[in-house]
């Protein structure tokens, strides 16, 4: 059964190997200059956080000077989103759907192998292969991007850091969980729908939906958020009228953290009447400045600190793996109850 699975999987395996080789070559070849710039920047040795922030910012500006690097960085993240999606559509969806569509199940399920074993080997072997190859892709891309990720974690406001929604699932071990999930999703869609192309469509749609739901609704709560209150500086202040008061917010920066909720307060009182006339903000006139200062305006932040990167990665990977197993269970149930 193992040999049959590998034989049927030959084309996909070759394509995956070729893609991996191409990606590995590209990123391996472009890494040395990056490493050199990083060692020259002194970030590795920095101790005080102010210093590190400044060094990180200048390192990143230097990297950005070469147009290729931001593109490669973004491409790396994009690849890590695409690899699970492609696995779901091209490894998962056809797995069962093609056998049903071409009616070759009538040959496959009348040999001396039970349906359960047939499915178990296919899902298990290819699921592990999906995780392994995604792991390799992620290893290369995360390793390549590590100087930039380290710099961003130290607090550069120019580059989004790896905790942020778009980037979190692009590095680390989380893509491995998503690969398993997408594969199981594709296989289950194929088993339930019975046709390959519709199963591929359903897979990509649901996968995309999950990629939107996770950062917005699940990830913020995987570990209870940290809270902190920061003062709103005059230079960053913004306000909107709410009732007869003003809702004042500002810019928040916590190095390397993912701030997913900022709440300002509504302030009322005489100072507000003054501020309402300050069309260029608190710095327009000295009167505006002192009116603003008298408020001691603050914001409440809910965030995940940089130190929680690996725990969050672990939890999210565990969730996606659990979803993958649940989907696999549905696959087994459907196959055993075949056929309509």
């Amino acid at each position, binding site marked *: *059964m193992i*040999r*049959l699975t590998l*034989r*049927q999987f030959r084309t996909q395996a070759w394509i995956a190997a070729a893609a991996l080789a191409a990606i590995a070559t590209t990123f391996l070849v472009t890494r040395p200059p990056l490493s050199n710039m990083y060692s020259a920047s002194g970030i590795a040795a920095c101790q005080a956080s102010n210093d590190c922030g400044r060094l990180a910012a200048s390192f990143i500006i230097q990297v950005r000077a070469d147009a290729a690097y931001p593109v490669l960085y973004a491409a790396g993240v994009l690849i890590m989103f695409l690899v699970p999606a492609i696995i779901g559509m091209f490894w998962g969806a056809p797995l069962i759907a093609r056998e049903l569509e*071409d*009616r*070759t*199940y*009538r*040959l496959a*399920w*009348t*040999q*001396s*192998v*039970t*349906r359960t*074993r047939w499915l178990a080997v296919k899902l298990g072997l290819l699921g592990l292969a999906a995780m392994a190859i995604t792991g390799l892709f992620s290893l290369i891309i995360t390793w390549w991007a590590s100087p930039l990720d380290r710099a961003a974690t130290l607090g550069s406001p120019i580059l989004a850091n790896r905790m942020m929604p778009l980037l979190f699932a692009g590095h680390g071990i989380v893509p491995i969980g998503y690969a398993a999930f997408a594969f199981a999703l594709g296989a289950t869609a194929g088993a339930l729908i019975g046709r390959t192309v519709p199963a591929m469509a359903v897979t990509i749609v649901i996968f995309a939906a999950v990629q939107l739901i996770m950062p917005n609704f699940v990830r913020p709560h995987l570990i209870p958020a940290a809270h902190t209150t920061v003062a709103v500086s005059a230079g960053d202040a913004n306000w909107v009228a709410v009732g007869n008061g003003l809702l004042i917010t500002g810019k928040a920066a916590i190095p390397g953290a993912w701030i997913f909720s900022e709440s300002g307060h509504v302030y009322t009182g005489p100072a507000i009447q003054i501020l309402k006339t300050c069309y260029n903000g608190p710095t327009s006139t000295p009167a505006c400045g002192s009116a603003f200062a008298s408020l001691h305006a603050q914001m409440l932040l809910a965030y995940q600190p940089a130190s929680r990167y690996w725990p969050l990665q672990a939890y999210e990977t565990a969730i996606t793996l659990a979803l993958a197993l649940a989907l696999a269970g549905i696959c087994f149930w459907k196959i055993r*109850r*075949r*056929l*309509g």
Partner: protein
Amino acid sequence: MNIIQTIGLGKAYGRTWALRDCTLAIPEGHVVGLVGPNGAGKTTLLGLATGLLAPTCGTITVLGERPAAGSAQLAQVGFVAQDTSVYARMTVADHLRLGAWLNPGWDGELARRRIGELGLDPKQRAGSLSGGQRAQLALTLAMAKRPGLLILDEPVASLDPLARREFLRGLMETVAERGLSVVLSSHLIGDLERVCDYLIVLVASRVRIAGEVSELLAAHRRLSGPRRDLRTLPAGQEVVEESHTDRQTVLLIRTGEPVNDPAWTVTPVSLEDLVLAYMSQANDTPARRSPLGVAS
């Protein structure tokens, strides 16, 4: 032992019954012909026997066990599906490897020899084989796993007469060699007449008649004679098919005893006529028969 035994077997899709009230006890060592028009339920019955379908009601055992109950039971049953299912992009040799990998009882020597005798190119993709060659490949795969029972669903329907004869020849040679049981379905009795010694007629999802061919032929007669009322027939004679002109009555009856009435000319019935009679009986509803038994 019975190779296939069913009790009240039925399969429904939603509210449509593809098969119902199916009770059969098929003895081993026979070549069983399953005959019926398209849509009668033959594929459904064979699907239930191979475990590809699950019953809605009733039971079925194949070689004493529930179909597809485990790998030992699966190894005992070979299946050739309608419009033979092979992997179009895999070569003939790949299919033989598939057989070897998935069947502990695989006889690789037999498979290779048969492929050679059939003149199939091992490197050719199965999708580019002709219909007859695909059927022979599928049959080779089913035979080489050394099953005790071979089930074939309309294996010759899309074959030309020569390919048909070759297919049946190969099948019968294996039966002669190894004494395995075979169940063959077709919508044409002509395909099966040469090879079956047990017959099941399936029409409109019900079994109409089942039994050994020699016994069935011995139990049926064609009677022709002057026009008469069917109520005058003796009790042991069951009318299967009737036709009347204003002067003559021709009946096909089923009976256990010899017909002694001198008014009848009695002739034997061919297998084809027998099958056709039961098929048309299934199409007649009681409303179409008037008391004098005139077929409308």
